[in-house]
């Protein structure tokens, strides 16, 4: 089948999509956007988190056909050219990135959190990121990064 949707502001089409393909597979293997990651492909780890019409979802749990005509924003669409989004910048600065496989999903999820909540408490950060597994960091530096990104965003606005 043919699937057409908007990705990071651009209209993209994929042909010969098998009905069982996930949005994640189409992004990674058909649209050249492998930033969203394939750590569990069953909705447990959050590494494939993308925005679908502005709501974070696990791209592995969305059938490609369900994205038809909709707006998808992936980790590749957060930076403004070479200018990183404050969340991305804070992840690098705070040491929240080790192997980095969880990073794209966490960055999208954290981006959504601080869009919704200007100055999230630690409890709110933990709740918002509870669906994103990280095996390297023990999450301490991730908390640091989200706090920093939120503070910078608040200071800038």
């Amino acid at each position, binding site marked *: 089948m043919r699937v057409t949707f908007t990705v990071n502001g651009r209209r993209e089409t994929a042909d010969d999509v*098998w009905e*069982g*393909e996930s949005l994640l597979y189409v992004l*990674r*293997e058909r649209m*050249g*956007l*492998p*930033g*969203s*990651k*394939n*750590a*569990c*492909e*069953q909705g*447990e*780890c959050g*590494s494939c988190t993308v925005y679908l019409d502005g709501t974070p979802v696990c791209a592995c749990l969305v059938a490609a056909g369900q994205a038809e005509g909709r707006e998808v924003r*992936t*980790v*590749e669409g*957060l*930076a403004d050219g070479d200018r*990183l989004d404050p969340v*991305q*910048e804070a*992840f*690098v*600065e*705070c*040491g929240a*990135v*080790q*192997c*980095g*496989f*969880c*990073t*794209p999903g966490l*960055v999208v999820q954290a981006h959504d959190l601080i869009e919704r909540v200007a100055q999230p408490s630690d*409890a709110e*950060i*933990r*709740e918002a*990121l*509870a*669906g*994103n*597994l*990280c*095996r*390297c*960091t*023990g*999450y*301490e*530096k*991730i*908390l640091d990064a989200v706090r920093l990104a939120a503070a910078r965003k608040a200071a800038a606005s």
Partner: protein
Amino acid sequence: MSATPVRAPRDIAAPGTGGVGDSPLRPDGTLKVKGEFAYSSDLWIDGMLWGATLRSPHPRAKIVSIDVSEALAHPGVAAVLTHEDVPGRKHFGLDHTWDQPVLAFDEVRHQGEPIALVAADHPETARRAMEKIRIGYEVLEPLTDARRAAFDPTYPQVQPRGNLARHQPVRVGDVEAAKARAEVVVSGEYQVGIQDQAFLGPESGLAVPAEDGGVDLYVATQWMHNDLAQIAPCLGLPEEKIRMTLSGVGGAFGGREDLSMQIHAAMLALRTGRPVKIVYNRYESFFGHVHRHPAEMRYEYGATKDGRILYADVEILLDGGAYTSATMNVVGNAASLGVGPYVIPNIRIDAYGVYTNNPPCGAMRGFGAVQACFAYESMMDKLAEACGLDPVTVRQVNAASQGSELATGQVVWAPLPMAEMLQQARDLPLPPPLDPSDIRNLPGGASQTTHGEGVRRGVGYGVGLKNICFSEGFDDYSTARVRLEVIGGEAVALVHTAAAEVGQGLVTLEAQIARTELGVERVVIHPADNQVGDAGSSSASRQSYMTGGAVMTACRAVREGVFALAAAKLGRPLDTLGDLSLVGGKVVSESAGVLAAIEDVLGDAVVEETREYHHEPTTGMDPVTGRGDSHTQLALCVHRAVVDVDVELGLVKVVELAAVQDVGKILNRLSLEGQIHGGTAQGLGLAVMEEIVVADGKVRNPSFTDYLIPTILDMPPMRLEILENADPRAPYGLRGAGEPPTLSSTPAIVAAIRDATGLALTRVPVRPEHITGSS
């Protein structure tokens, strides 16, 4: 050479400044946060096929027949391969064991053992074709009893080489005589379940057939040269026809020491003449790599009334599953570190590693020392209670220190301020008491069903001693090539090694060392590949030490080359220039000050040097007594855990974890803290969550739905106290740091749960039913 994938590893410029001791940003960090870093599962090349692996559903069965004809006829399938298609040696294996079939024939020895391969135009096509492969099995009763495998000669053999992989004894003094003198005797039986590395990036990679009949392999591994030494004979190719490039590695933790898809993808690529990509899904990943050995341990300690240990009588039984993998060395670690960092005059340890049809086990962070640490630390708490001492004091009374003799007779030559570290851990302020007004603070969090009436707080301590670098006489070394030249008017250092960046931050450190040694700012890290000498494994907390040492040594050789050029340029003999150094982009003489800019000295010249770095040699362990200087470096971490336990619901919330660790020298605080945090988290996982549950040799929970690793809600705030007592033998005085916290956090948490509940808790992970007594 063949075509290069469109997404492939590339040179990474290390931005900014920062030498040894600073915390510059990761050179790969920006790529990773933008989703542009090329992990092994992201590789893509025109015309590539997808490989898939058919695995045994049975832990033990004879293979009576294999029929691939229907699968081969499936539209879109390019190849179906079995053991008959393995071009060279039919077995591979770590450490020259060569006991694991590339593809099973005659018999399968564990659930998930690979039997056949498919290459097809789409992963779903490959999966459907696999369902058409007909395997005739004669299913056999799996051999799953590790104790019988070790001690019952009538138990059937899993492997032609017998069921006992290694028995390593340690003998010190006279345990029987000491038993007669002991005033206090404590004993315990402890169990550790199977833990999984659960790295997030699944096993994956790309094999591209080359014009010379060889193959280019893009893979995620911990040790490229060791992979190559197994891949080449199995493919029947000389090593120079296999070009390996490290692709982005999504974590490792020991789980990538063994081969997974490397030979398989290469076989399919060579057969089809097309690039082949293999990516495991999470289910397959649970079968695609070895796990941490489960352990059964029996300990008996005798002591004086004031808590001084007189003897230790220890048996450690480790189940390695069907193939050897790293079992030999895991047993060596369990034996040599079987009583940890304590001075005990009479010791009898027997550590065994056996073959069974349970899941295969091998390397995981902590490597044999984790299992023993849970037992010996549990024993220390037991002894404290029996002697009426507190847990810190009993550890301090028996603590090793610089100059002490460990169980193997090895003398601790470097600082080991364990008693002081324990004191420091105890003196740290405790977290505030539980505030039950916010339900999220309770064990169980938002899922709590009570108001916390049954919640009790507990505090516990754990100490872990880990060997750093390879042990037991292995010639452990790393290689680095460093090149200095002027590019765009600026001196640039290019660092090239085969060392695997698996997330730990080695690429950051390599650049820091180059800056410190060469006085330049711009450093470029070449992708790791096998076009440079062996770097050894990203294991045993060894890469800062070994590849760090190699980069340091190669840089110093380059520096000498620059000095010689400077002397020639100045027209003066080198020995008249005084003590030279490279600082701030200049050649500097201690006596005469700045002599010249590095760029001016270099001009068009390129200075390139390759150096190997070897650590101090170690010895083997005596096969009868275990005696030997088998470790080159030892590292210590002390943990204090604070927990809240709902004793009615069996739920645990770890409230805080405080670590005191001696790292010798802080090379990069940000990365270091990340290592201690991450190691601590994996220890928490083993303490209260993580276990591969096995029944009759079959894995019951191969998914992240059922195999639980800590989330951000499970991890408490972590307080770190980092000490710098240098190891004079090591580069910059450093100590490997990634593993020790994985040892100590587990027993600390369990001790805290015991403190809260009064329960014995002899098995990890501790489950709710162990606390409520409902199992």
